Every structure is written in C-alpha cells, then in structure tokens.
C-alpha cells in the first residue's frame, strides 16, 4: 500500500519487512516478493494502459535485456551468500530512496535520431496539454545495457528494479517521464516472471509466505489507488524514503555482521 502511494515498487519493502521484522529466511522473502511484484504490475496494467502512453516496442525490445538479466540474477542468487545479497539489497534500497526524491525531469532532445532507434521504430508521441508531443529515443545500447543490470538486480533481489529502469529510460534513452513510467510497469511484471520461474523450481516460493504477502499487497494497492488522489505525495515520498533508508542501513549492518 505504501508502495502504491509513493510510486515505488512494493517489493523494496517486503524483503526487509519479512527478514528484519519476522525473521523469515531471505530466500523465502525474495520468492514472496517476486510474486507480489508481478501482482502489482499486472494489476496496475489496466489502469496504465487506458492512458495509452506506453511504448510497446521500446518495452518489448528492452525486455530481451531484462529477462536475460533476470534469469542470470536468479541463477546468481543460488551461489551468492545470503549476507552478500542482504548488503547488495541495502545499497539498492539506498539508491531507490535517493532517486524517488529527485523530481522527474524530461530530458527531451532535438538531436538527430539514433541509428538503432530508427531501425527499431522507437520514436513515438504522447498526449500533453498542448497537444500531441513527439519524442526521440537516444542511446539505445546504453539503455539496453542498463536494462540488463536492472534484470540482474530484479532476479537477485526479488524487486522490480523500477529505479534502474527509470534511469535507463529517462536518463540514458531520453524517453519522456510519462511514457517511461507506464512502459516500465509493464516490463517489471515480465522481468519478475522470468526469475519467478527459476525461483519456483528451486523451491524458494513458499505458499504459506507468498499467500498473505500477495493478498496483502493487492489489497494495499487497491486502497492506495483510492486515496492516492487526495494524498500529499511529496511528503509521503519523503517519509517513505527515510523508512527505506533506515531499512537499508539495517540490512547492510546485519549483512556485514553476518546474521543472515
């Protein structure tokens, strides 16, 4: 619910909550978190798609990078010590907390179109108050590479990696904020599904843990969507970021101390 309110993925809260507060093994926590990430992504897709901003071609092409990354990450998770996973998780949490408070800024460009972007038919337009606005997509290889990283993190930590996806699409590829947010929501579900398959096979997804987490997250998302219009998003984001940062330090501390 807090996740839906602030626009941050709920996944970043679930793993620290389950491990730190309930003492659940981090592997079960990651499995449950992946499931909830899929639930939020697919559940929100209908609302996002009605707005019609998402760029399916960009999304699908970058999915190649994120799914390969997710599968890599899921395999890495088996051989990485859990305390190392906890430390990496903490660092990613800190970055998420930081990036959530940066106001979204469109870095639109008039530069000549990117060779790859033209070849892949990426350039598009989206509706604004002043009519249809077209945009060009830049730096496709850099975006593709960052998306692979996003996929690895998602597969390793069971999160949506929304912050890295936004970094790739907004900062590197210069896609307008509205388009990148909706496209990234679609991609998060597909990426999580790619690693969830491997987690399932490895026995990391436990029905007793995933069931309450999934239902809780869905209920929270429904309530969150109701009260979101009236909420002070900026204040909420700030509070949420402080909580996230505190969780991050605790994950890192416990990871270093070796209590995972």
């Amino acid at each position, binding site marked *: 619910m807090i996740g839906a309110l602030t626009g941050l993925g709920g996944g970043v809260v679930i793993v620290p909550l389950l491990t730190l507060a*309930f*003492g*659940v*093994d981090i*592997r*079960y926590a990651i499995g449950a978190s992946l*499931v909830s990430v*899929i*639930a939020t*992504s*697919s*559940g929100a*897709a*209908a*609302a*996002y*798609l*009605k707005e*019609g901003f*998402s760029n*399916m*071609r960009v999304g*699908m*092409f970058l*999915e*190649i990078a994120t*799914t*390969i990354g*997710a*599968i890599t990450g*899921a395999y890495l998770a088996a051989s990485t010590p859990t305390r190392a996973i906890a430390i990496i998780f903490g660092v990613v949490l800190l970055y998420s907390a930081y990036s959530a408070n940066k106001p979204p800024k469109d870095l639109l460009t008039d530069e000549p179109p990117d060779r790859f972007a033209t070849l*892949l*038919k990426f350039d598009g337009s989206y509706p604004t108050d002043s009519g249809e606005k077209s945009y060009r997509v830049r730096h496709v290889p850099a975006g593709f590479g960052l998306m692979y990283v996003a996929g690895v993190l998602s597969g390793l930590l069971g999160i949506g990696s929304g912050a890295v996806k936004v970094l790739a699409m907004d900062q590197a590829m210069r896609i307008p904020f509205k388009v990148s947010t909706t496209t990234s929501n*679609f991609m998060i*579900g*597909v990426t*999580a*599904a*790619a*690693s*969830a*398959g*491997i987690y*399932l*096979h*490895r*026995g*990391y*997804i*436990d*029905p*007793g*843990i*995933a*069931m*309450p987490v*999934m*239902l809780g997250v*869905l209920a929270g998302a429904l309530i969150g969507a109701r009260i979101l219009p009236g909420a002070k998003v900026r204040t909420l984001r700030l509070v949420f970021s402080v909580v996230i940062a505190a969780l991050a330090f605790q994950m890192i501390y416990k990871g270093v101390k070796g209590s995972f």
Partner: protein
Amino acid sequence: MAQSQAWGDKRFEVMMGRLLRFGVIFAAVWVLAGGIHYLTQSSGARPDYKVFQGEPGGLRHPLEIIRGAIELDARGLIQLGLLLLIATPVARVAFSVIGFALEKDWMYVGVTLIVLALLVYSLSSS
C-alpha cells in the same frame, strides 16, 4: 496509416490490460480460497521459515503443482494460484505476438518471440 496503426495498438493494449486484471483477480481469489483451506486444515506445527529448507518437489514443477491441486492439497492449491499469477505477464507477451502479427510487424513478432522463449525457458527449466 500511422494514425490507424496507433489506434489499433491502443485498443489492443486496453484489451490486454483487462485480460491481465482478470488474470490477477482470478489468481488472487484462487490463492485466497486455497489460503482459507490451508488455515482451516493445518492446526499443527507451522513450518519454521527462519531456516531455509526449500519446497518439496511437488511444489516446484508446474505439472506436479497441478497434480497436488487436483488432490485438493491446500499448499498445492495456493501454489497453483501463484503459478497462475506468474503466468499473467507470460500471457501478455504471448498476446503481443498476435498483436504485432496483426500489424504485420514481423521484426517485433521476432523480438516478442525471443522474450516469450526466455520466459518459457525459465518456467520449464529445472
């Protein structure tokens, strides 16, 4: 031409969005039903989640999960619901293949098939 293509794109996406939401609601109701069954049935000792053991084989592979659910095993029922949920984005990608094929955009039919193949690999590998 470009206009009508974009419009068709959007209508298709809205349809897919509804399909996804239906999938999620269906999976959630399924998991909830399995969960109620699970809670009423297991009054004994709870598994200890502090120690990682991994799930038994019957809760790991799609075909065996279905078998467990048919036998009305509560954990198997929940697991099938979770499997349905994991399948919703896969279904979306599969439908995108059709969407791009309707637009005769063969390059993206290829791109989408690669993504679909990766997803199927992840779900079926062991």
